[in-house]
C-alpha cells in the first residue's frame, strides 16, 4: 500500500498496490483480486533479479476514493493521532 516507504526502508522485493489500509490483498470475498496480488508477490519473490525490485499491480480500487478513504479509517482516532490532534489544537 505504501511501496515508496518500503523502498525507503530498504525492503529487498516490493509489490505495490493502490489499496486502502487494511486491504493488502484486495476486496473482501473478491478471490480473483486477492489471487492477482498473491500470485504477483510470489512471482516477484522468486523472480526478482536484484535488491530493490518493485512491481506495482495495475488494479484500481473499485470504490470511489472519498468513500474508500473514509471506510478504511477506524471509528475513532488512534491514540497517537488523537494526541497529535490535541497538540495541534492547543498550539
Amino acid at each position, binding site marked *: 500500500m505504501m511501496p515508496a516507504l518500503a523502498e525507503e526502508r530498504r525492503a529487498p522485493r516490493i509489490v505495490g498496490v493502490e489499496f486502502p489500509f487494511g486491504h493488502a490483498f484486495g476486496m473482501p470475498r473478491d478471490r480473483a483480486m486477492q489471487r492477482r496480488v498473491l500470485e504477483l508477490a510470489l512471482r516477484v519473490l522468486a523472480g526478482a533479479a536484484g*535488491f530493490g525490485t518493485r512491481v506495482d499491480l495495475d488494479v484500481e480500487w473499485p470504490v470511489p476514493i472519498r468513500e474508500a478513504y473514509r471506510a478504511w479509517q477506524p471509528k475513532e482516532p488512534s491514540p497517537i493521532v488523537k494526541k497529535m490532534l490535541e497538540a495541534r489544537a492547543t498550539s
Partner: protein
Amino acid sequence: MIVDSYRFLPRTFRPLYEGRGPFPGEEDPVWKPFAKRLSESRIALLTSAGLYLKESQPPFDLDGERARPEWGDPSWRSIPAGAEARELGVAHLHINDADILADPEIALPMRLLEQLAGEGLVGGAVANHVAVMGFQDRALNDWRQTTAPQIAAHLREQGADALVLAPA
C-alpha cells in the same frame, strides 16, 4: 501504473512517512537470491493487521497503547493455517477492522495459499503463519531484540523457504 503510496493517507500525515530514508544502520541492501523453484518451496505469510485467535491467544495490548500513545504492542501470534474466520479477532487501533473480520483473506490469505499449493504454483504452506500489530514505536528495540529473532526461529521451525510480508 505507478502506485501512489499516499493515495489513502490523510494529507497531513504524508510528511511523517515521506523522505525518511532507511533506519540508521540499515542503509545497506539486504539481498538473498531465491535459489529454489517456487513449486518446491514452502511459503509463510505475515500480516501486520493484529490478528489473533480469540479462544486461545490474548489480543494485542491496546490498553497499553491507549496509556502510551507512542508505543505499540511488539508481540506476535502464531496463526494456524486452518484457522476459520470466526476464530480470528483483530486488535488494531489504526484501521477499520470490519472488512478483515468479514474476510481475513484480505490480510492473511491462508486459504488462497493452500489453493496455490494444491495447484502446484508453490510447493506448500507452513502450518502456522504469523501475525503482528503494525503500529510500533519508532525505536523498534523490542522488535530488533525479541520479536524479529522469535519470528525467524518460528519460521525455521516451520521449514519456511520464504516469507511474504503483508502490511496492514
